Every structure is written in C-alpha cells, then in structure tokens.
C-alpha cells in the first residue's frame, strides 16, 4: 500500500512539471506589455525599465521559469501585480471556502447519488429505476448555479433559514459554518449526485451480472449479504473513479456557485484576477487548484486500492 502511494506521488512529478510550464507560459502569452497594466499610462520609461528588471522580464524564458519554479517549490508563487499581496497567501486564504463547498457538495452527492444508484441498479428496469434515472438525467442537465439561485430565493430570502451570503469559518462556529455553506453544497451536490447515481447504477448492474454474484447466490447467501457484501464493494471500484472526476467538476462548479451566495473563495479571486489580468494570481489559482485535484486523485487511488486488491498488490 505504501508503495502504491509513493509510486502515485512520484508519478505526479512530470505531470506537475508540465502544468507548471503551461501555467508559467501564460504570462508570456498575454498580449501587450504586462508593465503597462501595472504602471498605467502615466509612467516614465525609467519606471518601465525598473519594473521589467524587477519582474525579471529581461532574462531569457528558461531562466525566468527556473527562478519562478524555484520559488514556487518553496511555496512562493509570486506577488499580485497591483499590490504586495502574496499569491500563495491570497489563494490559501480563499481555499477554505471553495474546499468547503467542494467537499460539502461531494458529501451531498454521495448521500443522494450512491443510494439512488444502488437502488436503481437493484431494480433495473423497474419504476424506481426509471424515476431515479429520469431524475438523474434531468439533474445532469441542470446548471448548478441555477439550482443555487432557485434555492436561494425561498430558503435565504423569504424564510431566512440560512444566511444568503457570507462564509463562517468552521473554526469560529461549526453550526454557522454549516449554515453558511449548506445551500451551496446542496446546489452543487444535486448535479453531481446525478452523475454519481448513473455511475453507481451502471456499476451495480454490471457487478450483478458477474459470475461471482451467481456463485454467491448458488451459495444460498441472503440478498442483503449479496447486495452489501458482494456487489457493493465491487461496484465501488468504478464509482470511486467517478468521485475523482466529480471532485474536479465540483471544484469548478464551486467557483461559480460561490458567486450566487457571495462567498469570497477562489472563484471571486480568479474572476477578479481575470478581469484585471492579474496573471500571477491566476497562475497561483491554477497551480494550487491542480494540487488539490491531484491530491484528491491520489486519495482516490488509495481508496481504489482499498476496494480493489488487485491494484493494491501491483
């Protein structure tokens, strides 16, 4: 198991290198002079030159990249174009909101999607299955920010059961934290649960057709044992893979849903940075976002190894 984890992490190195090159390259793809954006139009040529030196723009690309990478490895992803704010600090400061939504949404998705999928899979072709799959198909077509809007109006505005805006850190108050992210998590989780339900159902149906289920039945095992012991653990294999994708999708969804609830997370940060073309910020978000996704994938791989002994061994 340890070997699996180590090998997965080592395998990430080239991937992260490519991402870092792509990300760093962004800076050089931006049309126009970066300095103009920072200094405005009234700056003198001397100011331009000084800033160019400060940003290292006078160095060759690889040198610039090397320096940037060196600093990035020490956790320094540079500084905002417009003030001395550290990109790492800004992104890490925004991450709790976004991660709360992402993983909260995932929990909601799991809570709805997996039981619905298992249930539908067990009742393949039945009414329950058709209803569940219809809902899942519709759910997959729903933009999660629209669900968020529709939830916000009654729950937060009419009845004021939850605050319409604002994020409370779980360190301050767990209850307030839950309330501050609840609607967003439900909005995110609903669409993710649709995909999850479909996957789970498919996996369940697939597993139920496998020979070992026939064996289990021929052994006279109870349905409960067959469903929960023999089928579910095997069905979990493809579902866990989906969870990896879903976390990615949820993170993206969270960037938008944040806006509906006025939560200042990575979404607000990156949107603002895109509008002002604050490239270091965007780079930071991309790099740290990738790290999050990649870490989740390592966790998924570990979980995968847990349910699938074949992976664990190799």
């Amino acid at each position, binding site marked *: 198991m340890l070997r699996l984890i180590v090998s997965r992490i080592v395998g990430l190195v080239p991937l992260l290198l490519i991402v870092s090159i792509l990300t760093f390259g962004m800076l050089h793809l931006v049309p126009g002079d970066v300095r103009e*954006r920072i200094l*405005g*139009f*009234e700056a*003198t040529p001397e*100011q331009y030159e000084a800033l160019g030196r400060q940003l290292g723009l006078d160095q060759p690309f690889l040198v610039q990249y090397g320096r940037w990478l060196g600093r990035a490895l020490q956790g320094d992803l540079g500084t905002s174009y*417009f*003030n*001395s*704010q550290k990109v790492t600090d*800004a992104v890490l*400061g*925004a991450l709790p909101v976004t991660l709360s939504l992402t993983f909260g949404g995932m929990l*909601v998705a799991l*809570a*709805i999607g997996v*039981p*619905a999928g298992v*249930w539908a899979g*067990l*009742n*393949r*072709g*039945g009414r329950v299955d058709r209803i*569940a799959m219809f*809902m899942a198909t519709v759910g997959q077509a729903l933009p999660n920010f629209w669900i968020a809007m529709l939830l916000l109006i009654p729950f*937060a505005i009419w009845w*004021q*059961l*939850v*605050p*319409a*805006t*604002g994020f409370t850190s779980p360190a301050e108050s767990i*209850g307030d934290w*839950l*309330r501050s992210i*609840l609607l967003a998590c*439900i909005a995110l989780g*609903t669409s993710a*649960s649709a995909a999850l*339900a479909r996957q789970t159902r498919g996996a369940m149906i697939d597993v*139920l*057709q496998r020979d070992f*289920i*026939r064996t289990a039945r021929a052994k006279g095992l109870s*349905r*409960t044992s*067959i*469903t929960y012991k023999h089928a579910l653990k095997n069905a979990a294999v493809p579902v866990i893979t989906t969870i990896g994708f879903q976390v990615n999708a949820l993170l993206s969804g969270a960037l938008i849903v944040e*806006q509906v*609830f*006025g939560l*200042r997370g990575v979404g*607000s*940060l990156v*949107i*603002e940075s895109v*509008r002002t*073309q604050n490239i270091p910020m965007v780079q930071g978000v991309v790099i740290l976002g990738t790290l999050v996704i990649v870490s989740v994938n390592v966790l998924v791989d570990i979980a995968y190894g847990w349910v699938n002994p074949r992976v664990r061994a190799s």
Partner: protein
Amino acid sequence: MSVARFGQCGSRAVAGAWHASPCTLVMLVCSALLAACGPVVDRDALADRTIRFATYQPLITFDPHLSPTGPTASTYLSPVYDGLTAPHPDNPYDVLPALATEWRWLDDRTLEFRLREGVRFVDGEPFNADAAKRNLERMLALNGPRRNTMRSIREVSATGPYTLRIALYDPDPTLLRNLSTAPGLMVSPAAFDHAALDLNPVGTGPWIYDAAASAPGDYYRFRVNPDYFDPPGEDFGELEVIVLADGRTRLFSVISGQADIAIIGPPEADHAKRLGLELARRANRWMGMTILDRRGELVPELADVRVRQALAFAVDRQAIADAVYFGYASPAVQPMAPGLGYVPELDDYYRYDPERARALLREAGVEGFSFEVPVGSAGSPDYEAIQHYLRQVGIDMRLVVMESGAYTAAAMARTFPVNTIGYPNYDPDSRHLAIWHTQSAFNPFRIESARINELADEARFSLDPELRARNYREYFDILGREVYSVVYLHVDDLAVYDDRKLQGVRLGAYIDPALRDIRLRRTTDCPDGSAAC
C-alpha cells in the same frame, strides 16, 4: 439472467430501508441540519461594537502616495490616514482642519499651515513639519497616479517644528481640497521604505489596520486607535470592511446581519426600500456621454453641433431615472450639480423631444448614422435604454462592452468617438483638466476650445470666488449648448444600513459613506425611543 430477477427480489428486501425517495432524503438532511443549527438569530447589536461595511471594491494599495483617489481611497485610506486638511462632509469645495489646525495664504502663491502638536503615527513616530514636508516630497517624487492634482506645488519647507510652508508655481484654489485626498495623506516617514507599505499602513487615523486579522481582497479589519488625537467618543466602533463583488449579495449581507452598511445599486435599493431598510443617498455623478470626437474624425456626423444636440433631445431622461434607476437618479442636462459651474438656464434647454431631435438631424442633413460606444462590463441597462431612444430618432448607437481596464484605456485613445465614464458632478477645476482641456487624458482627439481653456485657466489660477463662479458659468453654458458632453442624469450613490445599530450615516463625495462619521447607536437612540431595538 438470474441476476435480473434477483434485482426484483432485492428491492423488496431493501425497500424498507429506502422508503424515502432521494428528494425526501435531501429534505430530511436539510431540515436535520437546520434544526441542529437553530434559527438564524440577530446578533446582539449592543455587544457587537464593530461597524461592518460591505463594499464592492477591494483595496488597491495602502500607500496613499501611490493610490488613486476615489472610493477605494476613501474606504481604505481614510480610516488610517489623515491629511493636513479633511474633506468637508457637505460641501465638496470646502475643507476642515485635520493635521493642520489652521492655514493662511501669505500671498496667492504661498500657503502656510499651523500643524497639530502631539500627534504620533501608530508606529510611535512623531508627526511634525518635517514629517509633513517629507511626505509631500515623497508624493511628488513617487509620481503616483494623482500627483497631477498637486502639480502646483513648487517647494515645501518646514518653517518651524509645527509650521509648514508650501510655495506654488501658480495660485491654486483646489490645493486645500486636494490635500485632503489620497496624495495629501501623511505616512510615518519611518515606513517610507517598507516594501509592504501597500498592505501595512502606518498613519495617524482613528483606526489601526489589523493585518493579522484581515484577508486582503476579502475583508479588512481596523481596530480603534486609542491614541487618536481627536478622541471620537464611546460610540465609535471597530471597523470591518467586507468585499462583496455583487450588489445583491451586499444587500443580503445587511439583511442577514453579516454587514451593517453596504453600498448598493438602484435595484437593490428598490428592494431595500420595500423591506423598510434605511438608505443613505447622494447624487455624486453624472451619467451620459462625453463626445471625444467633436471634429468628426471617426464619426463625421458628430462634428455637427445639431447632431450632438439631437442626442440630448432624443432621450426620455425621466423614464430612465424611474425605470432603470428605480427613482434613484434625476434627469439632468449639465455636468455640474447646483454650485460652482451650474447654469440654471440650461435646465430648460434640453427636454425630451424626439421630434426636435429628428428635426435637428434633418437640418444637419443627417439621414441616420451609427457610432460605437464603449460601456463597462457590469451590464449597462441605462445605455441600453438610451440606445433604444436614439434608435427612435434614427441614430444607431452600438454598445461595445469593455473590461474596466480596457474601458478606461479606450477612453484615453482614439478608439471610440465618445466615452461613457460617469464623472463627479462637482469640482469643475478637476473636470476641466481631466476631460475638456486640450491636453486632458480623456481628450484623446486633442480638441482645442480656446474660450473654455481661457475661462478655466483664469478660474483655476484665481483665488477670487466671484471670478471663478462667473467663469465656470460661462464655461458650462458653452459646454452645454455646444454639447461637449451629453448629460442625461445625475445618479445617486446609495448605501443601505441597519439603523438600529448605526447612526450618522451619510455618503461622502465619493461612492462610499463617510466612515469616520458613523457612530454606534445606543439603546436610548432608538428611532422610536424604545429600548427594544
């Protein structure tokens, strides 16, 4: 094969466990969580001594000498810094004493200040004439974005420990006012070389920025400065500035108690009014179009004054004020609000008269024309409405959406024949230099109007109020009749606030409220006199 049937049996076995549909499950989970959290309670307004202000704009920099002026400066710099003078809350042409207690003109090119004694910056450095001199010199040397407002300063000298003398190239009636804005604010000289001054202000203001408790871009916390030279009293609170990009979100933040006061837009104000929330409003800006291409290089039709007048006649200002601004704007035909540069006769000059507009176009021999107008990205229902009215008289106004950066840049280049920047409706000296002067940044076509330059130059180098009033009246009369800028509305800046908690809320000369004037309400201050609020 066997499996399918098994499935059916399976469902019977487990149906009990999953009797609820996924939908009901969600509901159950929700209600369980909600029950666990309890109802949303109003925070105890008395226990909470923090004024929480929700704004749309994050800090740009805490270094006043590199900061632009405007709302970000007044929101973030005014809590922590003082200038020699302070803006007058009601009169944009007047100032109040601040770090300078009094001043006098030695001659029309020399101004002497008597400085407040015993003031210390929050880092312990003393404030004195030397510190003030070094600040102004730093500001002039750094060449920040608003240095041009101080360009009349020739030399600054400390004539005593607490007397400061500023020598000018020209008489400057705006200097005292400009000294109260960002470039005139005083930073501890010991902090000049801090690389991180932009996020760690060191001033003398009534609040101290708490960097450790803040998250730049998200929220900023300010503690009360216990050593402030002008103790503000017990009902002065801590300050938290919360950044929320969306106006609706800011309104909700006040409704839900997350913030106590928020800058909002007209649709939110409309909603707030229906909810019975208290609003503060002040008409600070004009809304319209400044015709950049008055020689007709891009759009020949715009060279004809009759065409420009048609633009002014064609639009139903009242309808836009009512429908798009929900009443939080008033029809206007000239840039300046009553005061300096206001021309009462002009008010009747342009009324909504599409026939007149068509007639003017006919006279000018224009059979319909089109031009492009850059608008900001936030969505511009007002310009969409104007577009509609112009189309009625045969003018095709095309909206080109631009990012805020590009938008300002475009207004300074010969890309578009007009710009749609909403300038403040006061301070003609600054507006002239910014918009209509031959060398103005926002006059990219370098259109020269000898008479208005002459009038403005005479006025802005004169300390004689009557001459200034006379000149700017003529200036804006010309500007109005020649339509250098088409003005449609004067627009209210709006803030919604919790009047059970706050009092003394009024908007400043920029979009945001005058934070220093806000006081926490004590129980006895309840609007209805009861102790229950």
